[in-house]
């Protein structure tokens, strides 16, 4: 029995825990063993919290025995290393925070812990979540379990690789331009990015505050729904948190797709999309249609400007957010600085990697005197146009469907020379961030042995519709069960 605990979803593990087939300690030990054997090849973790996990698992088992089991009692979780975890190293995959031990918990971390979840460790990522391949991490790239020469995508690449390799059934991620959905697509996992403001950003190290949103990577939509129910909700400590009731997402998963209006964006099937990915996604759309969905074409005329808009707005916000790293209160501090100005410049010059520095400088440039109107203000206006396109589209459709990424997983190093090529990896996902919409990627096929993701975007707070559509699709296929060779 204990041999296949790693193959079970959170929902299956919850059943086993509930009827006493196994304990949280059994699960935790089994997964810590898996991490021990496989992490060397994958580099999916920055920190493994084995001792704390076993103690938490024992506490969860005791709580269950005394009738105090929370909704996630005894279930394993891995947190992306962008989430602050009290008294545990929180690096954001940067030299800047190499030794940062967080003095507090992020709201997402606290809510999961209060629900009884057991944290196994902190996952690798692109430095400060800036990247689409996990290659900007100070701790080295993450390898894709489907092919170790390939990238798992990014920035939540460690979370995605760990879930795909069956080292954990679930992991948190963050998504600023596609950082949950793109790695989920490239690793054959489910990746959910909720509506902006749905989940608290408190304690989630900020990259671009008007775009960042926390979510999860799992192996089933039901698991994503279960976790969202715990993570979502108003938080006094996040000034952009939205005060809206949290529905029972799992209970909303059994609706028929009959009459569901699915929008297709024509430009998303043009020359930019890998032909074989296109075939897989079209098959998925045909299946939705067979389940009763009505496919209609929608027009998002300004969407082609979403990547350049993003690469003004996100760096601008990043340059402001990352100004807090000054080498004084926390983080890396350069030795032998001549004066305070030199201390700032050297500490930041040494502490940040090349991509992070480029984004800070791009942001500084677009916000600087003489360029603000031409770049930043202009980008905010185009952002409004893109959001308007979506508003109009969602008057006629319930979800918009397409491919999550333009290609399956690419080779490590293939896109590191040209920042623009890398930025275009998120061409289908960035629009949802600019408009604050929820999105999900679910596995929908394999191309040359590498996974492809079906991308669904919903209206604001349309997570129930989105999750139900993804779940119904999942019920009719078995792509979620596809497991990379050697990780069964």
């Amino acid at each position, binding site marked *: 029995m204990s041999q296949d605990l790693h193959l079970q979803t959170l929902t299956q593990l919850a059943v086993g825990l509930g009827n006493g087939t196994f304990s949280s300690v059994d699960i935790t030990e089994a997964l810590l063993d898996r991490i021990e054997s496989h992490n060397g090849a994958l580099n999916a973790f920055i920190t493994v919290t084995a001792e704390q996990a076993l103690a938490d698992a024992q506490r969860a088992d005791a709580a269950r025995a005394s009738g105090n089991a929370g909704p996630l009692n005894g279930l394993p979780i891995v947190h992306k290393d962008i989430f602050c975890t009290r008294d545990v190293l929180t690096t954001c995959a940067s030299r800047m925070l190499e*030794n940062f*031990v967080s*003095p507090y918990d992020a709201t997402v971390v606290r809510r999961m812990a209060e629900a009884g979840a057991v944290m196994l460790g902190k996952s690798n990522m692109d430095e400060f979540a800036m990247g689409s391949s996990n290659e900007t991490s100070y701790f080295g790239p993450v390898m894709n379990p489907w092919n170790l020469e390939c990238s798992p995508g990014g920035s939540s690449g460690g979370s995605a690789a760990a879930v795909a390799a069956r080292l954990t059934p679930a992991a948190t991620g963050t998504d600023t331009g596609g950082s949950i959905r793109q790695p989920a697509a490239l690793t054959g996992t489910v990746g959910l990015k909720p509506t*902006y403001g749905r989940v608290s950003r408190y304690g989630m190290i900020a990259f671009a505050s008007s*775009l960042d949103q926390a979510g999860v990577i799992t192996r089933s939509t039901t698991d994503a729904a279960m976790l969202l129910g715990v993570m979502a909700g108003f938080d*006094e400590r996040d*000034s*952009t948190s939205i005060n809206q009731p949290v529905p029972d997402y799992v209970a909303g998963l059994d609706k028929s797709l009959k009459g569901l209006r699915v929008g297709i964006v024509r430009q998303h099937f043009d020359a930019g999309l890998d032909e074989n990915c296109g075939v897989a996604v079209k098959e998925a759309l045909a299946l939705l249609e067979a389940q009763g969905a009505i496919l209609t074409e929608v027009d998002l005329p300004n969407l082609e*400007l979403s*990547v*350049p*808009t993003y*690469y003004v707005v996100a760096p601008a916000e990043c*340059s402001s957010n990352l*100004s807090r790293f000054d*080498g*004084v*209160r*926390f*983080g890396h*501090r350069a030795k032998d600085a*001549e*004066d*305070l100005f*030199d*201390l*700032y*410049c050297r500490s*930041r*010059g*040494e502490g*940040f990697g*090349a991509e992070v*520095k*480029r984004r*800070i*400088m*791009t*942001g*500084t*440039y677009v916000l*600087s005197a003489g360029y603000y109107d*031409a*770049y930043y*203000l*202009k*980008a*905010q*206006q185009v*952002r*409004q*146009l893109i*959001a308007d396109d979506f508003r109009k589209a969602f008057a006629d459709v319930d979800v918009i469907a397409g491919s999550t990424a333009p290609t399956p997983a690419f080779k490590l190093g293939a896109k590191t020379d*040209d*920042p*623009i090529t890398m*930025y275009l990896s998120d061409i289908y996902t960035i629009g949802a961030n*600019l408009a*604050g919409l929820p999105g999900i990627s679910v596995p929908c096929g394999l191309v040359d042995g590498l996974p492809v993701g079906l991308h669904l975007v919903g209206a*604001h707070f349309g997570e129930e519709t989105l999750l139900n559509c993804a779940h119904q699709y999942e019920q009719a296929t078995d792509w979620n069960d596809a497991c990379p060779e050697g990780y069964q």
Partner: protein
Amino acid sequence: MSLDKNQVQHIATLARLRLAEGESAETVEKLSRIVDFVDQLSQAATDDVVPMAHPFNETQRLRADEVTETDDRDHFQENAPAVSDGLYLVPKVIE
């Protein structure tokens, strides 16, 4: 190239970043490519479009200006590179 070495050096100074000798040429080249790429925004017709700063065009929520946190200075300062008697230390700023 849309940016030259002096411009990039100026941006780096504004951003309080010291670029190592070997980093400079690559930074000029890649930043120029990024600036060229985002320049396509200039084609968009945006007259009278209200700039969007928040996904729901919402305004920031306010709260009463009251102390809600307890003093946890010692714990926070465990992460500081240099402290003394509860103060953060920096290089001398006043002669």
